[in-house]
């Protein structure tokens, strides 16, 4: 089954707000081998002008995970997860994510392309803070390998 091209016109509801915790930031930082004091020490973060520890640049993928799950769960999406490969990833920020942020993420499918039997599906997950201000957008391209690929 090919990826459903109508996904680009679909409105996905925002997922439940994600509260960024200090220990989660530290745990994620350890997992990506991030040792800078800003990620671990609230005093170092405050000295640099942040309210609390700063999340590593790729942390928003944890928040975006729930929106990608939303996409894969669409009954008519035509996306076989066992054939999905992560092709490209980008994060565009308005400001860094810090512990204490409550992020609300909303998914939009921006493009679906076919290339040599594979499908490429690009989605954007925009995350806003508790005041509704944009913090970061995660842009992912997933490659769904064709049956004979």
């Amino acid at each position, binding site marked *: 089954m090919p990826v459903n091209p109508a996904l680009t016109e679909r409105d996905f509801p925002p997922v439940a707000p994600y509260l960024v915790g200090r220990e989660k930031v530290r*745990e*994620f930082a*350890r*997992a*990506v*081998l*991030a*040792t*800078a004091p*800003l990620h671990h020490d609230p005093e*170092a973060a405050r*000295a*640099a*002008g942040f309210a609390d520890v*700063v999340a*590593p*640049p*790729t942390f928003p*993928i*944890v928040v975006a*995970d729930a929106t990608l799950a939303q996409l894969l769960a669409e009954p008519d999406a035509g996306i076989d997860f*066992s054939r999905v*490969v*992560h*092709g*490209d*990833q*980008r*994060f*565009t*920020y308005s400001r*860094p994510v810090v512990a204490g942020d409550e992020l609300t993420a909303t998914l939009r499918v921006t493009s679906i392309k076919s290339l040599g039997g594979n499908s490429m599906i690009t989605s954007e997950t925009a995350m806003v803070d508790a005041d509704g201000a944009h913090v970061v957008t995660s*842009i992912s391209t997933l490659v769904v390998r064709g049956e004979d690929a």
Partner: protein
Amino acid sequence: MSLLDGLEVGQVVAERSFPLTRDTLVRYAGASGDFNPIHYRDDVAAAVGLPGVLAHGMLTMGFAVQPVVDWLDARGWVSDYQVRFTRPVVVDPQLGAVVTVAAKVGALDDAGARIDLTATVGEQTVLGKAQLRVTAL
């Protein structure tokens, strides 16, 4: 010292090697919530035709930026970061894998810089179009 003082296009600002083991992958799986078994089970990786257990692409993207974050040392922050996953990183159960990252200034303007990353295993690059923007704080 300000972030941009003395910086030149082409300058290598950071370089580091990251030894990965299966423990690294399990830790990333737990922290990120990505429990796809191709990142920790040899039998599953083999069954889907992979050359071995692979590092999560997002793990490689995650640590590849760290040499730049350390170089910034709170003088700036990463305001945009993108990569293309061009080649999987196979992590041997005994030997692991070593990913070497180099960060070079790609472009400069008044507010910050574009930094280009190369990430290699042996002679082969594993990320394509790996670029980030650093903005002065």
